[in-house]
């Protein structure tokens, strides 16, 4: 079936290109006229925000890499060189450093939106799974990026986290040696983390492309969780959602800029302004805020192997969420009971984060255990059972009717 694509672009040059490689037609189809439910709220901005963040992280990262030295003797000072001597190096670095936090904020909200409105349910299971893969890649990238400035928390964080793999019986210590490229976190570790930190964002781009491709096959979910019934329920992506996403992007950039310009180190740890010293362990080794809940799960379990498994499991359980949820109703707007259990899950996540930054003593042991228990119970017990027991509210007949309050017009 070889042959030219029939392009209807009036411009002859663009038409010539489009006939041979119909990317313009594709963009028009996927981002121009793409039918999108008309009733998105601003929670549907966060995918676009994550995309913007990824692009800005890659752009700033490329310029940082031009001035950074992945060498244990030079890394710390090369970051200070960027901060002090490179033209606008401080801006690049603070945008990148705070960008990691911004990336996790928008991604966590994006995930929460998916959970609240049931965006993971059939037929969007694979779309959701690709999203979880993106989250895991992001975490790996962020972790390795945090090691690069070679401060005390970089070094000791890397030591603690890579050591987790030693919990696996038999193969554990070989995995750790392989990760380190030696027998402790050292030059080979820093060098390979730099290499991987540069590589993984481009892998991310690939998976994000698949995520978006899958989205464009099954179409977007919406706050009502019912499928659009026809053209009256959708709007072309452009200009409606390009305009709406732009508003969100502007507001998001204000928040990001506020951190960069006025509180660039608020989310950081003072210890990372001290150069890595293998002979001196900091009083507290804490990960960045976006890892704290998982860190708390790890520490809430007395057995190291079980703790490591439960930490990774807390992320992997997301992969099977589409099959754990037995309810056919997607949106929590129509799930009066489940909604509250989901909010409680959000609180358990926040409580775990709070426990993660405190020493595992006294009240924090109990708190983190209760929260871990609830975190798992929510997925493995409450979600499957409640889906069967709950009586959902009646679903609206159509998106248009629900949005306008008018009865359905005949088309």
């Amino acid at each position: 079936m070889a042959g030219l694509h029939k392009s209807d672009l009036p411009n002859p040059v663009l038409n010539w290109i489009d006939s041979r490689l119909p990317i313009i037609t594709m963009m028009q189809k996927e981002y121009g006229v793409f039918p999108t439910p008309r009733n998105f709220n601003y929670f549907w901005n966060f995918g676009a925000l994550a995309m913007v963040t990824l692009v800005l992280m890659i752009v700033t990262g490329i310029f940082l890499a031009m001035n950074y030295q992945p060498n244990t003797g030079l890394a710390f000072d090369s970051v200070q060189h960027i901060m002090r001597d490179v033209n606008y190096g401080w801006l690049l670095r603070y945008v990148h450093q705070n960008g990691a936090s911004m990336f996790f904020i928008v991604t966590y909200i994006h995930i929460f939106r998916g959970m609240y409105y049931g965006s993971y349910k059939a037929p969007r299971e694979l779309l959701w799974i690709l999203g979880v893969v993106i989250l895991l890649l992001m975490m790996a990238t962020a972790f390795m990026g945090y090691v690069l400035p070679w401060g005390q928390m970089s070094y000791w964080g890397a030591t603690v986290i890579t050591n987790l793999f030693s919990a696996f019986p038999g193969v554990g210590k070989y995995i750790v040696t392989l990760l380190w490229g030696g027998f402790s976190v050292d030059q080979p570790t820093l060098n390979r983390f730099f290499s991987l930190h540069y590589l993984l964002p481009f892998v991310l781009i690939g998976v994000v492309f698949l995520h978006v491709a899958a989205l464009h096959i099954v179409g977007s979910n919406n706050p009502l969780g019912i499928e659009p019934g026809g053209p009256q329920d959708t709007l072309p992506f452009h200009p409606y959602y390009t305009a709406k996403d732009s508003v969100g992007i502007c507001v998001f950039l204000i928040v990001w800029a506020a951190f960069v310009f006025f509180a660039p180190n608020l989310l950081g740890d003072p210890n990372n302004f001290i150069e890595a010293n293998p002979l001196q362990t900091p009083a507290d080794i804490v990960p960045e805020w976006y890892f704290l809940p998982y860190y708390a799960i790890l520490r809430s379990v007395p057995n190291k192997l079980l703790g490591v498994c439960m930490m990774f499991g807390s992320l992997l359980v997301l992969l099977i969420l589409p099959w754990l949820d037995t309810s056919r109703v997607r949106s929590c707007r129509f799930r009066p009971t489940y909604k509250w259990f989901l909010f409680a899950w959000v609180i358990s996540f926040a409580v775990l984060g709070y426990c993660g930054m405190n020493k595992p003593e006294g009240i924090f042991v109990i708190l983190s255990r209760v929260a871990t228990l609830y975190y798992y119970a929510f997925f493995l017990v409450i979600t499957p059972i409640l889906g069967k027991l709950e009586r959902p509210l009646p679903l609206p007949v159509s998106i248009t009717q629900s949005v306008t309050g008018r009865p359905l017009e005949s088309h």
Partner: protein
Amino acid sequence: MRTSRSSLAPAVAAALVFAGLSIVTATAQDAPTPAKQIWSFDGIFGTPDLAAAQRGFQVYSEVCSNCHAMHQLHFRDLSGIGLNGEEIAAVASTFTVPQGLDDQGQPKEGPGTPANQFRSPFPNEKASRAANNGAYPPDLSLIINAREGGPDYVYGVLTGYAQAPDGFTMQDGMNYNRTFPGHQIAMPQPLTDGRVTYTDGTPTTVDQMARDVVTFLHWASNPEETERKAMGIRVILFLVLLTGVTYAVKRRIWSDVH
């Protein structure tokens, strides 16, 4: 499109998470919390008081620099606290710094130039410990950022020397300090009234010198701060304007849908 009340619920949940996160930065364990001081560089409009920073540089040069290096700084950086080219060259030339190798291949020293790094008092950490009873005076280039409590903490240490309370056991060669974690610090009290002589007639009390040197050290840790905050205000104003315009465009585009 109707924004229904049900979209508020997830917003509340999201807010809860971030309320939790905002506490992340506020923990300091096993150490007295230093009292909050008022600084010229506080807030989004605050920038370091340059006169104080210059006096602080004098305190650093005459007192701190005998033991503490600041190897991230170059003399040229002093333009950031308001010195002009001639003043910087004059200041630099009063320090003897390493100047590479001579024709015989031996390390050479000479008067500093603006391009030189600040002089380090010891060639390496081992030499530093040997000269300081085993303790290592940390590099001060980033000290304000590298301590919980930042400027308040450093000020608290500099002004926190006191007699050890009765019953408090001190180790040999250590000094009692109200702010330092564990209250035993190897550094002897560095500042006493009249320790330096200011050229601008500012009284040289311990409190004044501590404030000045903390202002200098804060600048040294964050030399981009003045430029950063000025740019930030313009960036945020621009983005607020852009948000307004974008929102107006969005409203107009959506007006035929509602």
